[in-house]
């Protein structure tokens, strides 16, 4: 290995600056970042919706995060980060203008070319809105590439719903048809639907064209089973149902082994899988 290869090896993380921060909920924060080196920003700006990046906080560790921005807007990257562990806690201490290291992008991402000229049903639960926001923004920026785009988004309570204003703005601009629901409305001022996310299928079922639709979902593990049931009821083909999954990862490139499921690695062959994969690989959901 020569010196140049050592400088640009596969585990090399690059410094990124925080451009903006804001709280999306009581436990989830929005991060807008940009690589300090413009060449790296240009190179790494060519990711696919559904891919992820690995953040490095020296002294604390590394962890993977879904990219929440769209490659159609290449001058920055966005993330939605829930405070659940030591690395996210360290990230929460950072301020606008602070820098930390990012490597990636990793993972297969969504096959956007395949989805062209189709209807999209995008179903999200809780934190699942973070990776799917990338796909939603992409679909809005390339609106003419897609037919009807339905977005069904559920959260536990109104306080838990992420990017709510973004999604409603897209709805108001008729970029996509958004339906929002919460499991509970403790304050009683929620203007939209109350109930589990699968109930939202009633609002679109009679208009779904199963010959020409891709379905995409992301949410807590428990959600998948019930959403898949609804999609199969609508006769969406199994290979046209996509989901993006979470696993423990240490490397992001098929070396550390933690994300192995059957014969695939979530980091290389996923995190986007089809329902056909799910049936084939028993441990996926």
């Amino acid at each position, binding site marked *: 290995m020569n010196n140049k290869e050592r400088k640009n090896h596969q585990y090399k993380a690059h410094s990124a600056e925080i451009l903006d921060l804001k709280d999306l909920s009581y436990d989830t924060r929005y991060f807008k970042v940009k690589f300090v080196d413009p060449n790296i920003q240009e190179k790494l700006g060519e990711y696919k919706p559904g891919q992820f990046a690995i953040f490095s906080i*020296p002294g604390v560790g590394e962890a993977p995060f879904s990219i929440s921005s769209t490659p159609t807007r290449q001058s920055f990257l966005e993330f939605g980060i829930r405070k659940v562990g030591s690395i996210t806690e360290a990230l929460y201490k950072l301020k606008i203008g602070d820098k930390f290291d990012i490597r990636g992008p990793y993972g297969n991402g969504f096959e956007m070319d395949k989805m062209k000229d189709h209807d999209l049903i995008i179903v999200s639960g809780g934190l699942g809105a973070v990776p799917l926001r990338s796909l939603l923004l992409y679909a809005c920026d390339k609106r003419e590439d897609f037919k009807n785009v339905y977005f069904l988004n559920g959260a536990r309570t109104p306080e838990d719903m992420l990017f709510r204003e973004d999604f409603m703005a897209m709805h108001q601009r008729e970029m996509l048809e958004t339906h929002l629901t919460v499991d509970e409305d403790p304050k009683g001022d929620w203007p939209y639907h109350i109930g589990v996310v699968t109930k939202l299928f009633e609002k679109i079922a009679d208009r779904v064209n199963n010959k020409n639709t891709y379905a995409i979902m992301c949410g807590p593990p428990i959600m998948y089973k019930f959403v898949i049931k609804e999609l199969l009821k609508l006769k969406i083909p199994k290979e046209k149902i996509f989901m993006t999954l979470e696993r423990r990862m240490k490397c992001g490139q098929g070396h550390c082994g933690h994300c192995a499921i059957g014969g695939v690695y979530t980091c290389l062959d996923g995190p986007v899988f089809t329902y056909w994969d799910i049936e084939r690989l028993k441990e996926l959901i």
Partner: protein
Amino acid sequence: MKTYKLPKDKFPNFINFLSNKGNLYGPVKQKDQHSFEQVNEYSEMDFNYQRTILGIKKFLTPPRYITQKFDSESVEDIFPQSETNIVLGIHPCDIHAVKILDKLFLDNIKDPYYESRRNNLILVGHSCLPDKNCICQSTGTDIVEDGFDLFLTELENHYLVWVGSSKGLYLIASAENLFSEDITKEDIAEYIRWQKSRSEMFETSIPFKYMPDIIHLNYDSDVWDEFGDKCLSCGVCSLVCPTCNCFNVEDKIVMSADKGVRERMLDSCTLPGYSLVAGGHDFRPNRTQRIKLYYTHKLKEYIGKWGQPACVGCGRCVSYCPVDINVVTISQALFSDVYEEMVCDNNE
């Protein structure tokens, strides 16, 4: 492949010569176990051994090593020193294990830490005779044709030396007065007879070629619960397996100063928390799920990803698992009533 003859009494001279070419490691007997240790001369080593505690992975993915050093200002990547390490006395199974690790760490995305260690490693193989725990004949890794720099087959009065790389040829060329190319008909006959008698010494066999199917069909079998109940989650199977390569990454801070290191260490899928994600969800919370992952991944799923199973039949799991969970007991349980007939069929 070039082949040479080395008289047995010249082997110590060759080792002396090699000691000038890099750090020398070889099988050293410590109490009743062998392990690859740094040596200076022939007399420190014992080539008449069955298996070392760890295979060659200890040179390629050491149990624990530093990948980065950092302080509050900067992060520095730490690569291993570029010294040549020559490992002597490696058995065919362990060379096959290196070939499997090479695929994982170099064929797809290159791991820079593995790559620098691998580039500086010279593998000198040595023939062996099996004991009752060796199952390399079943796994098809009892003979090795490439993946080494040199391989020595021990015959009555001399070694047959197989050259597997240009590095190996260079080592021979610069000590050429020790070697001859004069391989006679008698030498060939002796070698063939030796191979045959060795292959007849194997006592244990498993139906390896049917393994992927039987694992697939037994995915929901109770067999896994039985092994899960027994498993101690100690991780020794992964530690000693020459192809187990999963690693964890941890940061450590030096408390007295504003600096620290990032370390990689061997991990095992049988340990609790292997599939735990932030927020507390564990995708494999019980031992049954983890022991099933270990054996399905090694014996079946590896084929889909890397073209071959990841068991080289070295017998380490057979020797070291404290509760007798190993490839042999797993195959006996999975094949159950048809085990005996399948073993016979596999050997035909």
